[in-house]
């Protein structure tokens, strides 16, 4: 029983940073790199690595555009990412309830 529940935990969200990124993207349509950095208190490199991992899983989509001459990259959660995040939270909840 316990192991069944644990199996539903999403490996992608084992890192707290990735879980945090997903949780703020769940309540915001899209956020810029800097906004994410400020909210989560991560370093540039760290945040970029985690974002790339989530992007490769197709949980996060990236929009690149220019504001004037400055490049502005924004990130948003994809439907697949939202589903994965919800499933993961449900599994967490079920796990805690079962103790």
């Amino acid at each position, binding site marked *: 029983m316990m192991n069944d529940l644990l199996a539903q935990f999403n490996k992608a969200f084992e890192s*707290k940073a990735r879980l*945090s990124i997903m949780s703020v993207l*769940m309540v915001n349509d899209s956020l810029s790199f800097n906004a994410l950095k*400020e909210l989560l208190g991560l370093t540039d490199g760290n945040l970029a690595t985690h974002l790339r991992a989530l992007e490769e899983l197709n949980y996060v989509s990236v929009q690149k555009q220019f504001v004037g001459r400055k490049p502005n990259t924004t990130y948003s959660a994809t439907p697949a990412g939202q589903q994965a995040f919800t499933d993961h939270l449900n599994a967490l909840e079920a796990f805690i309830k079962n103790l």
Partner: protein
Amino acid sequence: MRESHEHLQTLTEIRSLMERSSKFLSLSGLSGVSAGLVAMAGALAVYMRLRTNWFTVLSYDRQKSYDDATNQTVVEFVVKVALYVLVLALLSGTYFTVRKARRQGLRVWNKSSQRLLWALVVPLATGGVFCLALLYYNLIWLAFPATLIFYGLALLNGSKYTFRDVESLAYCEIGLGLLSICFPGYNLLTWAIGFGVLHIGYGMAMYYKYERNVTHDERPAGSV
């Protein structure tokens, strides 16, 4: 057992992050207090100038008894004071909120503050235009409750994007505005209560609830 504690903590952190990223939580209680003090000063200025008792400033009956010239000076004076109050209250309110955001190490101009501002601006601008129309039709006694009602509606709308506590302030302002329509003689008093007393009370409550014991580095659990 230790693992479950860890998971619980993760859930708490997620919740805090979701709230922090979608709400503007740098609004300072001191902003409310300063805006309230400015409003009280404004109400006092009107009271001193019109030299009437607190309860009958610019009621419908009283306004009828003025001749045209007096009426215009009085209306101009009241509107001027109201504008000064608005500008000073906004300036002082912004100052304390910017200060709080700096102490939290957050930027003031971000997505959540923009959302909050927009939620406030739409009902407030509507109310502003509506009150100008009331002034144009020489219905200044109705403009007093109208400012309270529209301000309350703006707060109610904005409360979704900041501290939930703003909602109760909103209901108080709306209720007071409606009450003040029933008692048009008490205009200045209800106005002073709505923009002065309520702001000061709310601001102090918020300050003691959220800010008093907070150290300078306020990043709560949830920072990674």
